[in-house]
């Protein structure tokens, strides 16, 4: 356990079973009184912000979370291979570790991988990725999300709702946090 007085910006803490990064420490102390630490934290799993107030003498659980910039190379029989761009070491990860984000991984793209106690706890994709539409065959009523949307399949296997004018071969920008269409940015040559 760590004394709250030793916590500073970028310290990683385990709170209620989830890892948090400290984004700001507001230290307040009456001259003769107890110090108050108001922490602004961000959950490393879901990115949600949280504020917690601690007092001098409180103890917190520090965790060592390291972040690594890695490049996604390729997928082979359910294993996704990443390369640490600093050490050039290759790290395979299975689909379960990556979770639903796997459908937005395009070969060559850069991701941030968070490792805690030697285990991958999260993969941060770029907020937006540009992917080609490989299949836009769905035009039946049942596949229509709304009157203005239809579903398409992208080169990575993801399916997203897009406006009717998007066609096979188009490049579209997708928000990886929500999995939604942002705009059409071009057409594949």
């Amino acid at each position, binding site marked *: 356990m760590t004394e709250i*007085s030793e916590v500073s910006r970028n310290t990683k803490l385990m709170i209620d079973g989830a890892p948090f990064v400290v984004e700001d*420490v*507001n*230290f*307040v*102390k*009456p*001259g*003769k*009184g*107890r*110090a*108050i630490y108001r922490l602004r934290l961000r959950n490393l799993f879901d990115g949600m912000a949280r504020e917690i107030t601690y*007092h*001098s*003498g409180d103890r917190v659980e520090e965790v060592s979370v390291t972040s690594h910039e890695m490049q996604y190379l390729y997928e082979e029989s359910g294993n996704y291979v990443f390369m640490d761009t600093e050490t050039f070491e290759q790290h395979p990860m299975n689909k379960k570790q990556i979770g639903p984000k796997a459908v937005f991984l395009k070969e060559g793209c850069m991701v941030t991988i968070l490792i805690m106690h030697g285990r991958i706890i999260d993969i941060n994709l770029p907020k937006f990725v540009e992917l080609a539409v490989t299949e836009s065959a769905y035009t039946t009523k049942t596949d229509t999300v709304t009157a203005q949307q239809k579903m398409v399949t992208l080169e990575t296997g993801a399916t997203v709702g897009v406006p009717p004018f998007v066609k096979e071969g188009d490049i579209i920008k997708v928000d990886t946090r929500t999995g939604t269409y942002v705009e059409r940015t071009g057409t594949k040559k």
Partner: protein
Amino acid sequence: MAQAESQRLTQIKTNLERRALIHDSIRAFFRNEGFLEVDTPLLVPTVAPELYIAPFRADGWFLSTSPEMHMKRLLAGGYGNMFQICHCFRKDERGRLHNPEFTMLEWYRLDADYTQIVQDTERLILHVAASLGLGSTIRYHNNEIDLAPPWPRITVSQAFLDSAGWDPVSHPDTERFDIDLVDRVIPTFPLNRPSVLLDYPAANASMARLKVKDPLVAERAEVFIGGLELANAYSELTDTAELVQRFQSEIERLRADGGQSIPMPHTFLEATASLPACGGIALGVDRLVMLFCDAASIDEVMAFPRDLA
């Protein structure tokens, strides 16, 4: 010189020049009052035991957390009214208003109580403002602050009843006290006038004497200006037996809290047998400079705060 450092030092140069004027002005004020400037050690064999003030340890010694005990030894030795501007060290205190090494102004006046010390403070601050070419109104954080004395005084009981809905004097609760003071009471102080908070619960007396007519209350006052806690005044406790008792209880709390052991300050306690009746105060010079420089952070008024030292 790294570019970031040279840029920062250029940015705060006016503040540091103003700081030098403020130090001069403080010295001139006290010389004019006939006070002796003293110089007590920073490397000390022990510190006053206080639960929420953590000292740095240095090779079996301590870095001084306050000049109080040494100045009182001088008072006990027959030295009269005195002041000192010195550095103090308090571990783990780092924030917008805190640096672990900071500058304290401390003064003692014989035969004075805490109310007279607050009056000294009013006159001192006005004197500093005047020597900077300012009138009795200064501007801090977009607020005009009227420094004209007397500054509004409010008792701790009244302030807590008004803002927090309970009275810490009749119902002492030291933990809740600190939290409500910061979260509820201080934020309600007017920003256009200094505030003097006085008559603390006996449990928060520290080295202040209790009121003879009301021993639930300590003769202690704190001065707030522009939201900054600036100074802490006492009618000084001169009763050796009571000081021993307070130190003992604090040493025990420290031991129970985190196993910290602070040696009993015997030399100081022996001296208190001859400590004359007096009032005293500790004023944070860095915060005073912040006030007169309209600075948002203590880092803007010191050349090398901890992280850049």
